């Protein structure tokens, strides 16, 4: 029988050890940014894992990231641009649509994946401790990678059409990361809520595609904001994706109106959703392992 072995650690070193108090938490709890920072490498690995796995055994591989928005754009161009004669603020419809599809797909992908993220990682949740918010955040990180790839295609598209229609990348191109960030934050703001709810109510899984579809029509992807009646614009702008899509078009094509006060409304709405979602998630996460 081995005898207890005294620790060689000195008292001074022991004092440095982190002390964790485990006690039941009630109500709202702080976000603990420092801990999130300490786990940043896990975030990296979670994103990396998803990226690695997604295109394994797929012949076309990463090409899917480009094909999806591209084919959607073609369909939209035929249905909405050609048949329905949808106005496009004087821009060639394919460019007009693709330009909006990019942030839109970043958003829907992020929304869907983050909503399912906690449930999809059931094993991890019940067997390992880590800040649970890493799961929805990592899901969004994967969407960002797809976005970057299809963005390159968009630039080619603009170059191609630019020759005919005299459009070129606008001066606001540097604001693109800002719009992408806004789209991701919107997705996360909702994703925090839905992923936490999904743990308890699997109904969410069926709700998300429906929600995404409704949201699609409330966002000027296939139509321009200019066809929305003036008196509804402020209400319209409460949908943060309006600001994102309009901002994106302005940044890349420069032909549409520059973002105005309505963007501030969008940004405000995003921030409220994001922070509220984060706190709600933190509040719910302690029951995840018991309920999932």
């Amino acid at each position, binding site marked *: *029988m*081995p*005898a*207890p*072995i*005294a*620790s*060689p*650690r000195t*008292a001074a070193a*022991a004092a440095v*050890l*982190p*002390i*964790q*108090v*485990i*006690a*039941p*938490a009630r109500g709202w709890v702080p976000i603990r940014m420092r801990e999130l920072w300490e786990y940043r*490498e*896990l975030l*990296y*690995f979670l994103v*990396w*894992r998803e990226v*690695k*796995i997604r295109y*394994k*055994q797929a012949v076309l591989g990463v090409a899917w990231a480009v094909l999806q928005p591209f084919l959607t754009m073609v369909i939209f161009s035929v249905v909405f641009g050609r048949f329905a004669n949808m106005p496009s603020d004087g821009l060639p419809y394919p460019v007009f649509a693709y330009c909006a599809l990019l942030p839109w797909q970043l958003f829907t992908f992020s929304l869907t994946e983050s909503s399912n993220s906690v449930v999809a990682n059931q*094993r*991890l*949740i*019940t*067997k*390992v*401790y*880590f800040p649970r918010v890493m799961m929805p955040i990592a899901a969004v990180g994967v969407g960002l990678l797809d976005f970057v790839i299809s963005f390159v295609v968009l630039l080619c598209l603009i170059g191609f059409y630019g020759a005919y229609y005299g459009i070129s990348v606008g001066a606001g191109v540097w604001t693109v990361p800002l719009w992408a960030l806004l789209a991701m934050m919107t997705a996360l703001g909702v994703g925090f809520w839905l992923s936490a709810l999904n*743990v*308890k*109510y*699997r*109904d*969410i899984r069926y709700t998300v595609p429906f929600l995404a579809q409704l949201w699609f029509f409330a966002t000027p992807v296939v139509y321009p904001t200019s066809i929305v009646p003036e008196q509804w614009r402020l209400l319209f702008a409460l949908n943060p994706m309006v600001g994102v899509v309009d901002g994106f078009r302005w940044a890349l094509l420069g032909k549409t109106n520059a973002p105005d006060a309505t963007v501030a409304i969008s940004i405000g709405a995003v921030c409220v959703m994001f922070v509220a979602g984060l706190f709600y998630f933190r509040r719910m996460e*302690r*029951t995840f*392992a*018991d*309920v*999932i």
Partner: protein
Amino acid sequence: MSVAAISADRLTKRYQLGQREAYGALRDSIARMVKAPVRAARRLAGQTLGRPPRRKWISALDQVSFDIAEGEIVGIVGRNGSGKSTLLKVLSRITDPTSGHAVVRGRVGSLLEVGTGFHPELTGRENVFLNGAILGMRRAEIRRKFDEIVAFAEVESFVDTVVKHYSSGMQMRLAFAVAAHLEPEILFIDEVLAVGDAAFQQKCLGKMQEVNRGGRTVLLVSHQMNQLRRLCSRCLWLQSGRLAGAGPAAQILGAYEASFRRGAQREADAEDGDTKQAKFLSWCLSAHEPSRGNVLTTTGPTEVTFRLEVRTPIRRARHGIALLSPTGQNLWGTAVTELEFAPGIYELTHSLPGIPIQPGVYFWQVSIYTDDGMIDLWDCLPDLIVSTPPMTHYRDEYAGVLNLPSQFTLRSAPESDLVAEANISA
């Protein structure tokens, strides 16, 4: 004792029965929400209209308190569902306690399942990094230990093969190897040392001992008593969520194992009550130092004494004694015959030249019977705890059953013998 690495104070975790299945329908929740004002109104009115909704709760952990010193290896035993895993989950912050609290000093690594986060579509190399990150290792740390991990798992030639093509044993070994190279101050391990073949298990045990020599604290759940006996200095025993015992490993493990037999014994006692002609009362090792009570510490001469209460005279009685392993294997037995008893209390003493068996927990079985049948048969409690210095092979699977001191000499054989041997083989 040094500072407590872990100190738990009345930790309690309650689950609503069937809660795990209770997800799924938002409409139920909505229904509850709608009914909530009605219930509240009822409560206010102090009425119970109809049956109030009954909720069953079970305590997975019930007021569990203990302290674990820095550098200790502590085992946790208990039947299935006694709260062992819940305790580790609460301590590793996977789930919150319902009440009570615990203080944990130091970085925690928990290994509640082998291969958590392993993905079949990734290669061995990729999984090592992923799993390491999930268990809380830094990328630099994993990179530094990568070769060591792969060598430990014995999968060197397959590191770049997709894990789904691994055998399950290889997967397990790799997963355990990652976890074994964690370097937190406190390590929680749940029933995972049982992976791989005997040789690999041995390696795992060695690794655990090495971990502990580094001064780290380990809390270990296992059903393998021998493993716990070898590794742990102390043990906690959980019984339906409560702490049934805490103390030196040999003592707790003995009591835990005895509890299985005690259940059967009690039933037998209840059956024949006080109608027996005679009944065994107690047993002990001889009062000679240093072995006494139920702990044997010497391989030398030993006496063991059983007390027998005789109520009615017995003629031509026989008395049997057997030494059994925890699994019930008979290791030794003998019997004496032609005994005459008048009513009274007797001491039956057996003198033995030594009990040369491997350290562990065993038990005596004694009997008193005549040609007409059994009078009393007793699986003795407490168990015999053999805590002699082992003189056996350092690897468990080769150690065998006996603990015999042996002498070894090595010399070159005389040449004449060699010639003789050559003739035989020719």
